C-alpha cells in the first residue's frame, strides 16, 4: 500500500513537471491581429460585426467569409490547423457560380498561424447561445438532410460508399464536425440573418421548427 502511494506521487510529480516544462503553443492575440493586418486579410474578411449587408450587391462585394464571429463559429483548434494547410472548403469562388475556387488561400507558418488563430478565436458573437448541441446520428436530422430538404443539393457530403457527392455552391460539409461549433450550426439555422442577412441559401426559420434545426445541427456535427 505504502509503495503504491509512493509510485502514485512520483507519477503525479512527473506529470506536473511535464506540464510545467511544456512550452505553451497558445498564440498571442495582439500579434495575431498585426499579422492579420499585415497580410491584408481584411481585404476579403470582415472582422467587425454586426452584419450590415442589405442588398445582394452588398453581399456580392464580399470576397471571403466574414470572420467577426469566427471564435463562435469554428471549433477550437480548427483555425490554426487550417491556416497552416488551407484546404478548399467552398468548391466555388466566394458567391461565384462560374469560377471554381482556385485553392490559393494564403498559407501561414506555425507561429503566425497560432497567433492569428488566437486572435480570430477571440472574435465572438452573442447570437451563438451555448445550447449544448451534441453530435448525434439522429434519424430525424438525417431524414431532413437527405430527404425532406435535400441539403446535399448545394453542399458536398460523403455518400454511404464514401464518395464525394452533392452540389458545389455551398461550403462543403465534409468534415463539418471537425470544423464547426454545433451550437453555431444551430444558431445559423435558426437565426441566419444575424450572421448573413443576404445569402443564396434559403432562410429555413419558419419552415423548419427549432427542434428540426437542433436535430439537423446534431446530425451535421457528425460529418
Amino acid at each position, binding site marked *: 500500500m505504502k509503495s503504491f502511494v509512493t509510485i502514485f506521487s512520483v507519477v503525479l510529480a512527473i506529470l506536473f513537471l511535464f506540464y510545467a516544462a511544456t512550452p505553451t503553443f497558445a498564440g498571442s492575440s495582439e500579434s495575431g491581429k498585426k499579422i492579420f493586418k499585415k497580410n491584408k486579410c481584411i481585404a476579403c474578411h470582415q472582422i467587425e460585426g454586426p452584419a450590415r449587408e*442589405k*442588398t445582394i450587391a452588398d453581399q456580392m462585394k464580399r470576397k471571403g467569409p466574414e470572420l467577426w464571429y469566427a471564435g463562435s463559429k469554428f471549433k477550437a483548434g480548427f483555425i490554426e490547423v487550417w491556416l497552416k494547410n488551407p484546404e478548399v472548403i467552398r*468548391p466555388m469562388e466566394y458567391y461565384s457560380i*462560374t469560377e471554381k475556387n482556385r485553392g490559393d488561400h494564403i498559407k501561414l507558418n506555425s507561429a503566425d498561424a497560432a497567433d492569428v488563430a488566437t486572435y480570430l478565436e477571440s472574435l465572438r458573437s452573442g447570437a451563438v447561445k451555448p445550447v449544448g448541441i451534441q453530435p448525434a446520428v439522429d434519424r430525424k436530422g438525417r431524414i431532413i438532410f437527405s*430527404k425532406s430538404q435535400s441539403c446535399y*443539393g448545394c453542399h458536398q457530403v460523403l*455518400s454511404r460508399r464514401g464518395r464525394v457527392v452533392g452540389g*458545389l455552391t455551398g461550403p462543403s460539409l465534409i468534415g463539418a464536425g471537425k470544423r464547426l461549433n454545433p451550437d453555431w450550426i444551430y444558431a445559423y439555422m435558426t437565426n441566419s440573418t444575424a450572421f448573413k442577412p443576404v445569402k443564396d441559401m434559403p432562410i*429555413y426559420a419558419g*419552415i423548419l421548427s427549432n427542434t428540426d434545426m437542433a436535430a439537423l445541427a446534431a446530425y451535421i456535427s457528425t460529418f
Partner: protein
Amino acid sequence: MARSLFITVMISTALTLLVAGACVAGAASAPDNYRFYCAQCHGLEGYGDGPNATKNQPVEPRDHTSAYEMGKLTDEDISYVIKDGGIATSKSTLMPPFGKTLTDAEVTELVSYIRKLCNCSAR
C-alpha cells in the same frame, strides 16, 4: 432665422426620404434574384446547368427555357414551387423553398421572368 429653419426642414425631409428609400430597396429585381438564388442550380440562362447540377445529383434542375416542361405549370404552380419548394408540385425536394427568403412581390416578378425564359404560358 426663418430661412435657416426652412433649410433644416428641407434637409431633414430629404434625409428621411433617403433612409425610407434605402429600406424599401431591400426587394431586388427579378434578374438579380434569379442570378443570386436560382442560377446556382438552374444556370445563369436558365438551362438547368448551374454548378449544383453535378452528375451525381439524382434529379436535374428544371430547364426553364423548355416551353414543353414549363408549359405544364400554371403561374400559380410556379409561384407555389418557388415558395414551398419542389414538394408543392410533387417534385423533388432538391428544389428548395424560398417562401421565407423572397417577398410575395419578388416571387410574382420571378414567375414573369421565368415565363420570359420559356417564352410560354400554361397549356
